[in-house]
């Protein structure tokens, strides 16, 4: 009896050992970490997560979106030419476990449909999407190499006005209606909202349009980009060639502009980011706010220079054509 029990136990242990070896020989999941990977961390505001966030490969999903395209997963915004809402379809107004249930229901349903229709599809098991020990990409993991050539494409080929992009990119959305922007967008997401909406609306109107896939813009890891553009701080256009003498001759006091110490540069307090320094006024706002008598545009308006609507009156033009 003891021999039989021991033998059965030994066989089971050997089988267990081999299955362990077999299981460890394969890699976890199939998630890559390319420029299209979005970390779905919708449960983050509701306390500690039970599982790792899903690293969602957006381009891989978009490729199978079929005839409905973006609308497979996103709601259309109201109004013509408003594009799509970047939130997941049906997510607005939900909170806590409702969001979790929505993602589970929709993702698993779609993956199961893929199996039923014999299409390439995603996992249906927990660990297939919630993969442990994967570095969560940040928004800056894959930057866009928006070089002179790309700038030229937007200004000359697409004939976009400077302010079409730069107002929103610098946090001034006063001329956009509230419905146009997705509610609660962080400043990091404004560029997505701006670029993708523009590309999408052009495509819907059968006009030549920019790309919609993530990797088409986010092609290079940020580290590589820094290597490619070691001289990114060198002026390539857009800089203001400020004539100090000309302003001295105008009937304005020094401390209108130099409202701190004379040697303090504007950018020391008014930063580009969302910092609360400089009274929460960004460098862009400090220069461009129309109703402030200390900003460039506000002062020019007050001095009777007329409405400033031509950026190249102050900013040097960008180089045209390919660099």
């Amino acid at each position, binding site marked *: *009896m*003891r021999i*039989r*029990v021991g033998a*059965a*136990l030994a066989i*089971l242990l050997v089988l267990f050992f081999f*299955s*362990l070896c*077999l*299981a*460890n*020989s*394969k*890699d*976890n*999941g199939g998630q890559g970490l390319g420029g299209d990977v979005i970390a779905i961390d919708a449960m983050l505001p509701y306390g500690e997560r*039970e*599982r790792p966030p899903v690293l969602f490969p957006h381009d891989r999903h978009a490729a199978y979106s079929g005839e409905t395209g973006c609308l497979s997963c996103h709601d259309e915004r109201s109004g013509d030419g408003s594009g799509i809402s970047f939130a997941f379809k049906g997510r607005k107004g939900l909170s806590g476990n409702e969001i*979790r*249930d929505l993602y*589970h*229901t929709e993702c*698993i349903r779609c993956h*199961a449909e893929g*199996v*039923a229709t014999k299409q390439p599809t995603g*996992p*249906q*098991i*927990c*660990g*297939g999407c919630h*993969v*442990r*020990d994967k570095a969560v990409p940040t928004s800056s993991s894959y930057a866009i190499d928006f070089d002179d050539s790309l700038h030229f494409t937007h200004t000359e080929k697409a004939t976009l006005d400077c302010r079409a992009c730069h107002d929103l990119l610098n946090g001034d959305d006063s001329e956009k209606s509230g419905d146009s922007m997705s509610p609660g967008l962080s400043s990091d997401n404004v560029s997505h909202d701006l670029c993708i909406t523009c590309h999408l609306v052009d495509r819907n109107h059968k006009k030549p349009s920019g790309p919609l896939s993530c990797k088409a813009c986010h092609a290079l890891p940020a580290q590589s980009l820094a290597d490619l553009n070691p001289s990114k701080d060198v002026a390539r256009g857009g800089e203001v060639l400020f004539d100090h003498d000309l302003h001295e001759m105008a009937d304005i006091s020094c401390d209108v502009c130099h409202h701190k110490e004379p040697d303090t540069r504007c950018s020391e307090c008014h930063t580009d980011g969302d910092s609360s320094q400089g009274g929460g006024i960004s460098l862009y706002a400090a220069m461009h706010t129309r109703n402030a008598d200390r900003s460039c545009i506000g002062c020019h308006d007050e001095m009777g220079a007329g409405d400033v609507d031509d950026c190249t009156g102050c900013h040097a033009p960008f180089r045209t054509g390919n660099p």
Partner: protein
Amino acid sequence: MYQFITGPLLWLSFSIFFIGCFVHVALYIRGLDFQLDRIAYNTNIVSGVKAALRSIGLWLVPFGTRCWRQNPVYTLIFYLFHVGAVVTPLFLSAHSVILKYRWGIYMPAMPDVVADVLTAGVLVAACGLLLRRMLVPEVRNLTTPRDIGVLFLSVAPFATAFMAYHQIGDVTFWTIAHILSGELFLVAVPFTKLSHIVLFFCSRIQIGMDFGIKRGGVKSSGFPW
């Protein structure tokens, strides 16, 4: 594969489990004979039910009966195993999500960390139970290979779940292994000693009534048989 084992195979497993358990209970009750057992089940129903509930209750509570108190180490191992084995699958958040998704049934869920500790407890306790079967002479003499097999069958869903949750190795392999071993467990219940899932209650009700109705049970609270 996943569709099949969580579809038709799951329903087959559940059917065998529930029908098998029902048949076990039905056969147990049918096998009772008040003349043979000399228990007046029907005439002393109140005393019988009281004693039955008392027997079940005290046997479910750790150290609630003399037998539990006589074997404290075994009692701890036993409860560590059974509490984890019963509570974890019922109130696991992942199972709750599946129930909600599949059938719209809401089940309260415990934090994953608690489930993880309980699962580890099941695995450790299973090792303890195995050692007991191999080392304690009076238990070893009663042990058959079938008993060892049943123990492995019971532990397999937990071991595979632990591997899948911690993603040690291939998560798909372990998840499929977890589902299959869980289904194998369900199917095995009616055909092995795992049928004690329902027969424990039957035995306790019968013995509780037996000793509650006769042998002085109606005169005092007596001994919790």
